[in-house]
């Protein structure tokens, strides 16, 4: 078989699109941050729509769609429906897309008051009553957590998609990464309040490596026992206002954390 016939017989590269909703762009940036692997990415998929990388776009449908950000406006709510229709496999990336992100804090406040303070002409602002993750609006095929996402996990999700296998992304606790890294538990050795036991792994237990308690950026782990960890924080001297803020942080709109934070109001 000559080289040219071989190439002609090769299937076309899957089309990748990256869409942004309410977010800081940090998770999309993780894709550009791949650096060493970036050429492999462009070799494996056709980057059809990714405004952060190129203004050249190709129309859908797309094989693999990465969605960053939360749905916070009526326009977002319509747009995500269109995107879902154009996507064969839709992956949400990051805390905003998977849980609503830090902007979900407005779900516990008066949004019209915010708009009055922030905008000169608040009447032009059209916003939904609550901010939410993508899965509250459309079916999502896979959720990749993190604030920001871990680029190795992103590459794993893309590689798994290309190979037609399940992504190897664990749902267990940050503690497991700590222990594999040889980091002793900070709660035990130093009384540091840490959300690691209720937070999903994926970051490589970054904060505990630097003797900081986990902030819960990756959201609740599987079957997160938030009340038991909250009781332990109290034993360590943490009071309700701080517990509320800890659970109502970057992933505060995730169901388990939302429920727990309400108990400390």
């Amino acid at each position, binding site marked *: 078989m000559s080289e040219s016939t071989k190439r002609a017989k090769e299937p076309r590269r899957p089309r990748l699109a990256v869409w942004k909703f309410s977010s800081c762009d940090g998770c999309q940036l993780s894709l550009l941050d791949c650096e060493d692997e970036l050429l492999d990415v462009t070799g494996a998929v056709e980057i059809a729509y990714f405004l952060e990388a190129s203004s050249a776009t190709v129309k859908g449908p797309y094989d693999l769609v990465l969605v960053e950000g939360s749905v916070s406006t009526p326009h977002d709510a319509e747009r995500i429906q269109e995107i879902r229709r154009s996507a064969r496999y839709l992956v949400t990336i990051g805390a905003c897309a998977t849980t609503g992100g830090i902007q979900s804090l407005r779900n516990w406040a008066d949004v019209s008051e915010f708009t009055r303070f922030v905008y000169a002409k608040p009447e032009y602002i059209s916003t939904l009553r609550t901010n939410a993750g993508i899965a509250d609006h459309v079916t999502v095929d896979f959720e990749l957590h993190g604030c920001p996402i871990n680029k190795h996990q992103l590459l794993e999700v893309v590689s798994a998609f290309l190979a037609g296998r399940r992504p190897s992304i664990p749902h267990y606790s940050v503690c*497991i990464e700590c222990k594999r890294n040889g980091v002793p538990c900070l709660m035990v050795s130093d009384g540091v309040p840490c959300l690691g036991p209720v937070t999903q792994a994926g970051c490589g237990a970054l904060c505990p490596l630097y003797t900081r308690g986990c902030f819960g950026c990756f959201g609740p782990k599987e079957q997160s026992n938030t009340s038991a960890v909250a009781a332990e924080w109290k034993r360590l001297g943490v009071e309700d206002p701080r517990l509320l803020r800890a659970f109502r942080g970057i992933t505060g709109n995730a169901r388990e954390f939302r429920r727990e934070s309400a108990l400390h109001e």
Partner: protein
Amino acid sequence: MMNGAHDLADPVVLDPTGLDDLIAALRRRGFRVLGPRIADETISPAPVDGIDDLPAGWTDVQEPGSYRLERRTDDALFGYAVGPQSWKRELFPARLKLWSATRDANGEVAVEETPTEAQPTAFVGVRPCEVEAITIQDRIFLSGTFTDRDYGERRSAAFIVAVDCGDPASTCFCSSLGTGPATGGGFDLALTELLAHGHRFLVRIGSAAGQEILSDVETRPAVEQDFTDAADVLDRADAELRGRFDPSGVRNGLVRNSESPHWDDVASRCLGCANCTLVCPTCFCMSVEDRSSLAGDEATRTRVWDTCFSVGHSYIHGGSIRPSGRSRYRQWLTHKFATWQDQFGTSGCVGCGRCITWCPVGIDIREEVAAVMGRKEEHHADD
């Protein structure tokens, strides 16, 4: 190899300088020497060049869910109990690449097994409970039809300097399980640190390799006073440890109480975080992570520490067979104390107390076992 002055069976005495010389002798023979060092506010095995690296005058104060280092009033080099890191990490690494594979342009797949890099390593300061834990893991990884080559090579390359326990923590209960505070077997050299009548170590020789190393170190034969002092150290530790756990009837007691409502009680407190299983020196759960490259022409398989506390660990087609915290906690405790006996002929617990200390919410397995069996646990560290 035997040489001259000492018979394999005869204990000798080293002073602290002699211990320094022992470490130097091990290093001269090409051993990487790991010993207790202060790191991350804990005492954990790390490379040591000599006794100056050891935690002289430090101890650990342990309670369920709490570990703190404190100053001792003496200069003991091994005056602590056990730290968060067991020697398991050295023999059964947390991450191990098993193989990688490549596929060439013609679709031919070549698999390359990762060679073991077992470097001769001396473990200095292995506690009796930890020696027992290594013996238990030997049974897991090296007996039966399928053995673990990597573990075997690392194990053969290990030289064990055990140190008897003179200062157990409140979470320790080795004597209840017969694994301490004195070292039984399974060592190259076993030390008892003596502080009365001069700082020195009574050294028992457990192997020809241990005997050979000592030929490079100035020692003297042990005399009556040394044995009396060593017996005092161990008697004191023994008295402190007495009655902290009652292992009688545990095998059947746990199996018969598999539907005890207490499993729900402990599950309500358990974080399912897996700290207990990962600090346990005998827990051997593992998983493999397969990765493929974007181009689909490279793949790797990596073995990683896993835990029976993750939902995924018991995942089979269709779902997890231990879907609740209750079922996972029951699996862990029942396996550790009961069904382990059926599987490997011993208890899976050596009484080191790590799972108690390093549980972020301080769940004490001694109390949980007693509660599941419907008996009140009366023996407590600070009772």
